[in-house]
């Protein structure tokens, strides 16, 4: 799940202060689950903005509308008939959603209301932890289900480093050392030999924008429209 965090109110306020009519678009996908951008958060943010704008002479009209997911065209299409009434859109989706919203309405000014933070888990209510950096080449099979790319501050594939002490990271005592945990788990499972040999330098394939099409569907899209290529 993508975890996001609402931007400071002042920052959101500064972005939209020059507009008269603003639509705050929520996303009922990931950001709703991490309590950052669902319908409830849209209502809360709108209330907060209304209160903070009250002191100014011309306070803008801020309305809310939550779509199922901002990363799907089908759900964004619901906004088609309404956006014309507004000067600016505020999006409470993750970065992908904000961009897709802006792509859908290229004439609209679109602003993000949340900071997309990481791909992570819900440890408990309101408690999220990063677990994946979307590096594109998963090594969890070898590291016993603990990601060194995310959990190790130095992204070591042959850890732990010399700074590991008492099971925590040298960077921050509140972060467990990924490699100590990897070692413990693999030892307990009796597959320590997996990390006894040198892990060779790996390919970092997610370094250009990723686009992929499932092989079953490649025939559908492995063409470029003639008209399209001329654009």
């Amino acid at each position: 799940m993508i975890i996001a965090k609402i931007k400071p109110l002042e920052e959101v306020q500064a972005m939209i202060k020059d507009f008269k009519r603003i639509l705050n678009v929520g996303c009922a996908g990931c950001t709703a689950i991490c309590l950052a951008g669902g319908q409830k958060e849209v209502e809360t943010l709108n209330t907060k903005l209304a209160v903070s704008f009250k002191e100014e002479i011309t306070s803008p009209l801020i309305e809310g509308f939550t779509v199922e997911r901002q990363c799907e065209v089908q759900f964004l299409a619901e906004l088609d008939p309404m956006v014309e009434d507004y000067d600016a859109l505020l999006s409470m989706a993750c970065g992908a959603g904000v961009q897709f919203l802006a792509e859908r309405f290229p004439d609209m000014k679109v602003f993000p209301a949340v900071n997309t933070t990481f791909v992570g888990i819900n440890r408990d209510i309101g408690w999220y932890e990063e677990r994946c950096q979307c590096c594109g080449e998963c090594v969890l099979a070898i590291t016993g289900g603990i990601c060194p790319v995310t959990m190790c501050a130095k992204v070591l594939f042959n850890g732990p480093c010399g700074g590991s002490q008492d099971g925590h990271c040298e960077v921050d005592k509140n972060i467990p050392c990924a490699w100590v945990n990897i070692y413990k788990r693999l030892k307990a499972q009796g597959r320590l030999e997996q990390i006894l040999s040198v892990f060779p330098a790996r390919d970092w394939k997610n370094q250009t924008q990723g686009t992929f099409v499932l092989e079953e569907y490649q025939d559908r899209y492995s063409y470029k429209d003639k008209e399209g290529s001329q654009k």
Partner: protein
Amino acid sequence: MKSGSNLEKILAKSIFAVTGELGPPRGADLDAIREKAKHLKGMVDSVNITDNQTAVVRMASWAASLIAIQECLEPNYQMVCRDRNRIAMQSDILGAYTLGIRNMLCLSGDHQMFGDHPYSKKVFDIDSMQLISMVRKMRDDGRFLNGQEITKPPRMFIGAAANPFGDPHEFRVFRLAKKIAAGADFIQTQCIYNMNRFREFMKQANDMGLTEKIYILAGVTPMKSLGMARYMQKNVPGMDVPEEVIKRIEGVDKKKQASEGIKMCCEQIEEFKEMKGIAGVHLMAIEWEHRVPEIVEQAKLLPRPNPKDLE
């Protein structure tokens, strides 16, 4: 004087400058650099030492720069943002300056996908614009990027690149202005073949008053052959080779294509000498260092001023 480098002195004296280019070898090969340097000696005012160009592993730019100094060439130390974070960059700059490097060209760098290690991890900690302002901050404010003081600041003559042919055309000159604002002292442009567009670009730059704030060195690369021209037109990103150039090379006998390329290059240089706002040329004779003397002579750029006379 900002750095006191040869290039800076020449540019400050409004002498039409010539810079060359030298690509370090793919190996610990001292003689290869010396061989290349031999041809450039006395022909150019400063020579760009490329930093792993097209993302192919080569000898470190600072090391090759030092060898160039030993060969009595003034190096223009290139640094790309692809391979280093700000810590490595600042430390390299300190080291380079300490050992006598005075010019520096700040670039973003080609993406590693073009090179020989396509899936190496990119750094791009800061971009070329930020690198320029970082070097300027180190020189003028005597401070590192984080604001801490430097005991003895490196005084580099800061160069930057500009490509008048990239998209969107109308924005290119604004990007140039940004580089000037960031602190660049001189600009070396991408190889110019489309003279019309370049004239337009220079007119815009002149109109905006940018050329008074910065020295612009026009980039030229002589075409070696028709094949090279075609390759440049199709496969090199950001390169604009008009059809006329191809036709002109195509029009002559295969054996004469190289000399036609040089002739064309010299005609361009003649025009640059007269063009308002151009302070010199940057001659990128790619893997053709031995023809540089010929080109420089044909373009009537000789003799180059002796560094000692500039004092």
